[in-house]
């Protein structure tokens, strides 16, 4: 018997998680379905740093000098553009995937911070309309709950072509969350495993989309802006085509973007990271001469004011958050750790949004669990979090000498890795080298 660890060394190719997944697949015969977003290691905005002010650039006084954060979407086209006080919005998440209390909390928090929230694949509820001063209505392939009256009472319309967690895939909501109310809103039999359409039923390409956008504008008498949301796949071409189709804003959602329920293989293996997507979308906007006119909303794994500021510096006008907003209102709360462990996970790791068993009462339709989330407290937590994101973004912008957060620019950034330098199109730190564009 040897005392070394040779016989217990872990295979890199077949590590313990891989072996467990093969065994799970062999036992059940079904792919793994889960929530959350990509968990693998990816190039991220963490791979960029701000250079700050120095001899040649003046910083602004951190607590005194004005640093604007407002953004207007749809100016010049819609009769009522969307005015955001901060460059952070709440991403589309459906009632059905989330509890009514969670939707209310998101509306309350976003409204307190002066920004918008967004419906999801399942229609608009009174809870979210009533508690959101600015509500974006998603127009999805499934058209579940799609209603022209709701379209008219929205503050903007977002045509969803794809999302970062699953570009090319449709939504999914498993039977345990298709309660009577959810089923009625979606015109589906109660308790089925719903697999939403991934293609729009009445248009098939960018030329059709242009006509679809005209129809939507006609129905709302050109009052509100129209966004187009894309999963980050081919952001240069997709953004250009969305602009051609007439979008007032293009939402580009990187592969770190979350989902309520999707195949794990989709989440981890389709799409490109947010860091790689933003510069490509900006390149398209610049070449078309509409950068800062057609707004770019970047999404997918945004967590901090640093992420917000870097996304803006790369050329985005606004960022959108989903997973971080759920965490802010109470998702993965350590107070429920015992219950997360009873579900085979732990606070900080739980991802089974599809399961309807959320101890925090957020990703569930169970009335007892949902009642645990106080939407007023949840809303306050979200408003606080949004305030921190904004203050952090302003802090970094002032350090770079900017009087508005949208004045941040790629010149303010350096990259810590060759990959990030290539993706972001900014120099590798300490050099003047941008891979692919300079020698």
């Amino acid at each position, binding site marked *: 018997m040897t005392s070394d660890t040779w016989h217990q060394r872990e295979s890199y190719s077949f590590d313990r998680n891989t072996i467990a997944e093969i065994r799970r697949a062999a036992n059940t015969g*079904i792919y793994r379905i889960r929530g959350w977003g990509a968990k693998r290691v990816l190039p991220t905005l963490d791979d960029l740093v701000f250079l700050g002010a120095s001899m040649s650039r003046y910083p602004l006084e951190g607590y005194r000098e004005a640093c604007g954060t407002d953004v207007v979407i749809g100016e010049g086209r819609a009769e009522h553009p969307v005015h955001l006080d901060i460059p952070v919005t709440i991403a589309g998440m459906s009632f059905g995937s989330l509890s009514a209390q969670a939707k209310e909390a998101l509306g309350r928090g976003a409204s307190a911070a002066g920004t918008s929230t967004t419906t999801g694949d399942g229609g608009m509820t009174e809870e979210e309309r009533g508690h959101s001063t600015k509500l974006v209505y998603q127009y999805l392939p499934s058209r579940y709950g*799609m209603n022209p009256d709701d379209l008219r009472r929205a503050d903007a319309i977002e045509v969803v072509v794809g999302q970062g967690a699953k570009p090319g895939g449709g939504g999914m909501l498993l*039977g345990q969350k298709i309660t009577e109310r959810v089923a009625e809103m979606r015109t589906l039999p109660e308790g089925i*495993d719903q697999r939403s359409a991934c293609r729009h039923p009445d248009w098939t390409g960018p030329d059709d989309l242009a006509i679809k956008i005209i*129809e939507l504008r*006609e129905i709302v008498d050109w009052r509100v802006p129209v966004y187009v949301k894309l999963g980050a796949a081919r952001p240069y071409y997709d953004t250009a085509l969305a602009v051609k189709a007439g979008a007032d804003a293009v939402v580009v959602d990187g592969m770190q973007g979350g989902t309520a329920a999707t195949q794990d293989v989709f989440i981890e293996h389709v799409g490109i990271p947010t860091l790689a997507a933003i510069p490509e979308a900006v390149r398209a906007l610049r070449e078309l001469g509409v950068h800062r006119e057609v707004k770019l909303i970047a999404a997918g794994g945004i967590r901090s004011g640093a992420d917000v500021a870097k996304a803006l510096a790369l050329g985005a006008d606004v960022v959108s958050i989903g997973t971080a907003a759920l965490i802010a209102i109470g998702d993965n709360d350590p107070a429920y750790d015992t219950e997360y462990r009873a579900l085979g996970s732990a606070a900080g790791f739980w991802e089974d949004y599809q399961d309807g068993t959320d101890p925090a009462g957020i990703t569930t339709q169970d009335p007892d669990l949902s009642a645990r989330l106080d939407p007023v407290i949840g809303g306050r937590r979200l408003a606080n979090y949004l305030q921190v994101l904004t203050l952090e973004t302003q802090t970094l912008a002032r350090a770079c000498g900017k009087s508005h957060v949208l004045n941040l620019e790629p010149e303010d950034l350096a990259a810590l890795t060759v990959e990030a330098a290539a993706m972001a199109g900014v120099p590798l730190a300490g050099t003047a080298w941008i891979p692919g564009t300079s020698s």
Partner: protein
Amino acid sequence: MSTAIDLAEVPLRQLNQVLHNAESGGFDVLNPRGAHAVACGIATDVTVEVAGSVGYYCAGMHQVGTVVVNGNSGPGLAENIMSGTVRTTGSASMSAAATGCGGLVVIEGDAGARCGISMKGVDIVVGGSIGHMGAFMAQAGNLVVLGDAGADLGDSIYEAVLYVRGEVESLGTDCVEKEMRPEHLAAVEHLLEAADMAASPGDFRRYGSARQMYSFHVDDIDTELAEGHGGTR
């Protein structure tokens, strides 16, 4: 007395704004010349007659009243219709009455691909034949086809009911033929009458969901073995 609006004289925006502002009355739309989004978003009890063929999304999201197209209609005729009636005297292109939630859509000629896709409660009556992928993912409502149906009819269908008088090229996944019981004969008779079309309900065959795709199939070999059943030894 109808009000005439000539699309050769006024832009589409003006036409739709007039229709949206009207609380009632009749309107004749002249010279549509294949225009898109004609008479979309009507939410009051008006009657609109279009003198000629239209492009995409005519009567889109229609809620109340009647729109009649005296001609052919492009893609997405009466998409997401909520109530009321939309009729085209000619044929309709792809995705007619897509995602419709209620009301009646009548196509006197043929309909293209994906007629009734994701329908959610609308009644559709087609005097001619329909193309492939008819009633794809259809959730609720009735589709009556007096002619033939193309390939993959009713693929991934939920609770919508399909009636076809002619040949069905092929049924899509999870769509099966079902017995025509007296209530179905009565339903077809009612729909034909509403559409002002003549046919014998007894000549139609009914198709609907086998309901085999409503839930994922999940095996659980480990539990079977732990409970002492399953296995071959």
